[in-house]
């Protein structure tokens, strides 16, 4: 797949169950797009997350702020989206505090479930349409809510559009539906871990996206996959009895003295890698079998994983794998 093709839609929605590394993948995609010369905006949704920490910025506001060359970040807060909506829609200059209090937003979103999601998607629409900010972006990466919530998040506009027959809100919900259903404008990337629960939830989500919501998906990401370090022949050798003396001689030849304890440790780590890897493979197989989308495996990061250099490495890995698709 060409990178241009990968970044063809302006909006990339990255989602997955909590703790699968969704934010890390979002950041890596943003870095990748910026490297390709795009002006990128990355949006954190609702809750405060770790995105600013990755880029070493203080925290994100409701308007995009520059985090590093080519990458801007913002945090979309429903309360502020509502205020912005009222400002733009009803030309209200001074907005009563009552409208933007958390209780009011809680009330209104309980009264009309999905409204909060529409307020968030509405902000993404504004960004896409370059309506309310001075900046214009080639790519908008959305670090979307966790997957359970994601289906409600993405189905909110069509739900509202069905519920309302006429009126301005109906029209606006339709705009969002069009945005989400146009594969040239938006695409969803699901992130998961090669573990039971994340995989089964991802498969449920991917089916719902396809069958119910008709929202286009890009490749899925399976995060934290242990490497296939040993060749099948080497695996076979490791499973049998190994001639320690022969290995010891090899070590000595390069000036490395290894004792029995060292060998115990070396073999234990190799066995550990193999057993974890085989558990992961079962889940990866299920994942591949259950989705029509390609699955990109991301390596288990043996270092901190949250620092910018790690994420930059990850971006390189993704780029390489995308080009091979």
């Amino acid at each position: 797949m060409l990178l241009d093709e990968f970044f063809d839609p302006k909006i990339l929605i990255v989602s997955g169950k909590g703790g699968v590394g969704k934010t890390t993948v979002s950041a890596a995609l943003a870095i990748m797009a910026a490297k390709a010369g795009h002006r990128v905006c990355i949006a954190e949704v609702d809750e405060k997350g770790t995105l600013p920490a990755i880029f070493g910025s203080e925290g994100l506001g409701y308007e995009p702020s520059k985090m590093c060359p080519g990458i801007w970040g913002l945090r979309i807060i429903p309360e502020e989206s509502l205020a912005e909506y009222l400002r733009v829609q009803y030309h209200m200059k001074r907005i009563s505090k009552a409208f933007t209090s958390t209780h009011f937003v809680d009330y209104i979103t309980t009264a009309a479930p999905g409204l909060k999601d529409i307020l968030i998607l509405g902000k993404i629409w504004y960004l896409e349409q370059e309506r309310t900010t001075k900046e214009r972006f080639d790519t908008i990466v959305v670090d979307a809510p966790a997957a359970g919530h994601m289906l409600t998040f993405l189905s909110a506009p069509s739900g509202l559009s069905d519920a309302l027959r006429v009126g301005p809100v109906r029209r606006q919900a339709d705009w969002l539906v069009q945005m989400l259903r146009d594969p040239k404008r938006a695409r969803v990337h699901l992130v998961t871990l090669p573990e039971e629960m994340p995989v089964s939830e991802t498969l449920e989500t991917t089916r719902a996206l396809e069958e119910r919501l008709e929202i286009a998906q890009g490749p899925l990401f399976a995060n934290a996959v242990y490497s296939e370090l040993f060749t099948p022949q080497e695996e076979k050798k490791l499973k049998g009895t190994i001639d320690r003396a022969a290995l010891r001689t090899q070590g000595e030849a390069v000036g490395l003295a290894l004792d029995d304890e060292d060998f115990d440790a070396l073999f234990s780590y190799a066995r550990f890698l193999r057993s974890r890897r085989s558990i992961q493979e079962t889940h990866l197989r299920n994942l591949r079998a259950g989705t029509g989308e390609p699955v990109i495996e991301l390596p288990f990061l043996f270092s901190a994983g949250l620092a910018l250099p790690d994420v930059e490495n990850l971006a390189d890995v993704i780029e390489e794998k995308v080009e091979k698709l």
Partner: protein
Amino acid sequence: MSVVSDLVDRKEIIVCAGSGGVGKTTAAAAIGMHAATRGKKVAVLTIDPARRLASSLGLKELSNEPHRVSARKFSAAGLEAKGELYAMMLDTKTTFDQVVMKYAPSREQAEKIIGNRFYRNISSTLSGTQEYMAMERLYELHAEGGYDLIVIDTPPTRNALDFLDAPRRLTDFFESRVLRWFLIPYMKAGGGFMRVANVAAGTFLRIVKRIVGAEVLDDTAEFFGSLEGMYDGFKQRAREVAALLHSQVTSFVVITSPAEQSVAEATFFASRLDEAGLPFGALVVNRVHPRFGDRIEARPRQISKLEQGSAEARLLAKLLENEEAFMRVVELEERNLEGLARKIPRHRWVRVPYLEQEAVDFPGLAAIADQLFATTAPAVRR
């Protein structure tokens, strides 16, 4: 005896808390299983278990009622259930309905609330509801269930503390001044918001009506109207639940993985428990990469030489590379955990290493339980 066995013997309630994806539900199930082998009548209240874990506990579908795990499951795993193990999943909506039934002054009013559309949306959309109902169900099980021990899993939230504030958040919401400011005049005016004396509230209502529609506004007004007179009941119950959580019968077990983010959250959580005066029991550090030996100091130059050698030499290079990579994780995890040691003394910890199998069936849970309740902590070479 491990710090967790001590809790199982002495406490009536164990709350498992931590951020998502750290194995909270599995730990809760393993604790329950172990308690049953020690002769306790124990209930495990799970929130959102993985399907295979649920089926290993014999839970096929969502059920708010305790379901007994058969003694045969224990014997098949080589264990003896001296007590009884019950498992259940939280059904937020049903629990909420029961709460309404309990506090409504009449059956008629309760039914009116339960049939209301705004009410029906609450249990699926209003954040904090699930947490509140988990606490409510816990309280009820403790008061009426006749269990020796209840182990409860907490909802997966980004912020592990949410459930502590949930009851208050929900009662605040019901009593919100904003809502009363515009809804009560609306109701008094019989839905005719144009006649509302308060001009600001009138404008406000007009816009809300434009956004959500008149029907929704009517539902909402009806809901808050029928809730009148029930607030005190809600608040009283929230106070009782809080008192139970603060009492000596309860203990909090904080579950974390050694990953930076969940350690940060566990640290924060432990200090919040402390501030709130809630009884902290133990820290479970789950999914720790095992340490198999001291670091082998192989220099990159030596490894690259091996890489160019025979098949044997290349295998050794890979073994060294693999060891080096795992040592980096092990050391990183140890560094992450050091900060936690300053908050929670190490004698309150239990480390559960990554096992070579997944804890998705009964024997898998037993293996986790073995680690949690090991008589001696697994040796960690430093």
